[in-house]
């Protein structure tokens, strides 16, 4: 009896503790899907003290909202639904007012312009659920730079909420397509912001310019000029407008519109190109300082459309060395070519993703054109992102999440060309707002 009295209390405590521990055993839940719905974000107009500041603030908010919306990852909340009127970005918002309209994130900002006409744009990004500030930055610039500030804020928000760099403060160079007075085709290089703003022409109507590609610094582009039945690769300095011919790429291959495209090495000092020197097209490395070509491939079949890996160690290209055109990867010095595609159809226009893991391509099979991606090492299955009447010239966004491509649509007048974007999952197909017909897009890196 005495023993029981001694043991009663510890045993009871042990039972209670064991019961408590048992009750605390968590239910294990595995979440393996997740939602792909865009994240709702509220973007009130950036506030300003006077009309000019408020007007610029509203414009900045509009551009940010459009940027995030077109990314497909965010859903700006209708401003009509806003409850709280933001009057000071240094006061904590009433988060309940934003949660009730289902805003997961809240972006508030202000614009102020001083007597020297310097504009300060400050913003805070809040998580409406955890009520934590996720980002706070301010920029100083001149008021006429407000659109770039809007893109930079968009990039900051995008990066903070997705973990990857944005692509809004970028430009797109493309080929503006049209007809001359006698019906002759006119192809001019044009450039615009990624959202279609600030378009301008780079070349005139007197010659045909095609296949632009950006340098890693975004300050130069290469393109191919067709004159007298021959193709010449040019270098165009966007800062000075200066152009110079680099080398004669040989007769234009009527059947290989993309074959002569020159692409920069990530170091910005070299190009990899396809050029005809003897019987067929081979790949060459072009040194921009010494202006010399070094041959990389010598296969009798045509090797064309080279594109560097982001680390510059490898090159992907298309070649008919296996019969029909397929994709191959080789070392940057031309050694060890390995075929990476084996599917039916004709694989062309490979472009290495800035992330390094994927290669975008176009493919033609049974009269169908497709845009797809495949692992850079050829492993796994290719993924077709888009299929249509005509698809060509894929170009990656600088963060490797979005692809631009030329799309041809059949109309009564013939085929019309336009530039479209699509994300890596095959969603969010959108037409780029170019003036007139357009093709051959090239996406700049983030502008420094």
């Amino acid at each position: 009896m005495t023993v029981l009295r001694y043991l009663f209390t510890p045993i009871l405590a042990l039972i209670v503790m064991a019961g408590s521990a048992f009750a605390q055993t968590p239910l294990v839940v595995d979440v393996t899907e997740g939602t792909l719905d865009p994240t709702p974000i509220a973007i009130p107009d950036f506030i300003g003290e006077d009309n000019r500041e408020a007007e610029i603030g509203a414009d900045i908010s509009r551009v940010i909202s459009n940027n995030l919306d077109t990314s497909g990852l965010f859903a700006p909340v209708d401003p009509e639904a806003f409850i709280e009127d933001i009057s000071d970005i240094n006061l904590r918002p009433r988060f309940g007012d934003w949660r009730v309209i289902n805003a997961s994130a809240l972006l508030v900002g202000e614009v102020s312009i001083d007597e020297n006409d310097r504009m300060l744009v400050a913003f805070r990004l809040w998580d409406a659920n955890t009520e934590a500030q996720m980002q706070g930055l301010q920029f100083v610039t001149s008021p006429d730079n407000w659109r770039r500030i809007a893109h930079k804020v968009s990039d900051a928000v995008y990066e903070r909420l997705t973990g990857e760099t944005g692509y809004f403060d970028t430009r797109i160079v493309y080929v503006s397509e049209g007809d001359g007075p006698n019906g002759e085709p006119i192809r001019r290089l044009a450039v615009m912001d990624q959202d279609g703003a600030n378009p301008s022409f780079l070349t005139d109507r007197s010659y045909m310019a095609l296949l632009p590609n950006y340098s890693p610094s975004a300050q130069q582009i290469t393109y191919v000029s067709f004159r007298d039945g021959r193709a010449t690769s040019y270098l165009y300095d966007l800062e000075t407008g200066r152009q110079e011919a680099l080398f004669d790429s040989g007769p234009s291959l009527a059947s290989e519109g993309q074959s002569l495209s020159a692409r920069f090495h990530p170091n910005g000092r070299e190009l990899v190109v396809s050029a005809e020197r003897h019987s067929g097209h081979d790949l060459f490395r072009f040194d921009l300082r010494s202006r010399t070509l070094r041959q990389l491939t010598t296969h009798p079949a045509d090797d064309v459309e080279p594109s560097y890996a982001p680390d510059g160690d490898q090159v992907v290209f298309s070649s008919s060395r296996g019969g029909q055109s397929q994709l191959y990867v080789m070392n940057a010095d031309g050694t060890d070519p390995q075929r990476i595609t084996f599917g039916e159809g004709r694989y062309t226009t490979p472009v290495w993703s800035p992330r390094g893991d994927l290669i975008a391509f176009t493919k033609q099979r049974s009269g169908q054109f497709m845009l797809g991606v495949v692992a850079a090492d050829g492993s796994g299955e290719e993924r077709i992102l888009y299929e249509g009447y005509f698809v060509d010239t894929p170009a990656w966004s600088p963060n490797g999440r979005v692809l631009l491509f030329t799309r041809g649509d059949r109309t009564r007048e013939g085929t019309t060309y336009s530039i479209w974007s699509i994300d890596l999952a095959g969603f969010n197909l959108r037409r780029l707002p170019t003036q007139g017909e357009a093709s051959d897009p090239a996406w700049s890196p983030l502008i420094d």
Partner: protein
Amino acid sequence: MRQALGFILSLFIHAGLIASALVAFPHARRMSEELTVVPVELVTLSRETNVRAARPEPEPEPEEIVETPAPEPAPEPEPAQPEPEPEVIPPAPQDEPEPEPEPAPPELEPEPEPEPEPVQQPRPREPEPEPEQDSLDLNALSQLVDRSRDNAAPRGDAETGEQRNRVGPGTDMTASLQAMAASHMNRCIRSNADAPANMDLRVSLEIRLERNGRLSVPPRLIDEGRIMNSPNSYLRVAGERALRGAIECQPYPLPPEHYAQWRVLRVNVDTQRNR
């Protein structure tokens, strides 16, 4: 005899201590991790832009942020720290190049060549329908999930789920609750399928719930320090998305009669698995 009794007593007390430690230590760790729910992020402007920026302004007082995790009541607006006086910085130069709209053509003769056309013209046909819409019909998926949830709903017998859980393994019910919770949370937690492939973005959460399906305390990331201090920004975002999703999932539509089983959830988020 007294020695034997003392030995047995000591044995029980030590066992009790160990058991209480098992219960108490997770709570002790939780306190320290809650303090880091909000990461402080300073962005180096010079790395991203050539538009001159003033100093990244400091985060608002951490005390304010840390004390706000209670998601229920909307806090009253509090005056934040006043903005630091912006650094006097001259206006950024207009460094965006304005290319001349009509540059002089290269020296070669300006005779346009015929447009190079792809040799294999696409066969005339109607354009394919655009894959503009999501192929994943979330509504349909939700309906399927809802149906399965109905099927899995507990029977209205007299025996409560709590009682059954305590007297037997209850594996069937546990599986149903797991499926119900997972299907619900799949609609709240944003997928990380947009991150690069072959990246390990698995995170785990502990969620404590009231019987009404609302959070009793803010959700916490397990191994939060490793995740939120990771150099991998995708992993940090995966952790934040899981936390955000756990809050947005309220209320959790789980059967109150089985509350004892779902009072604490350990949620393993691995949305890369099915990409």
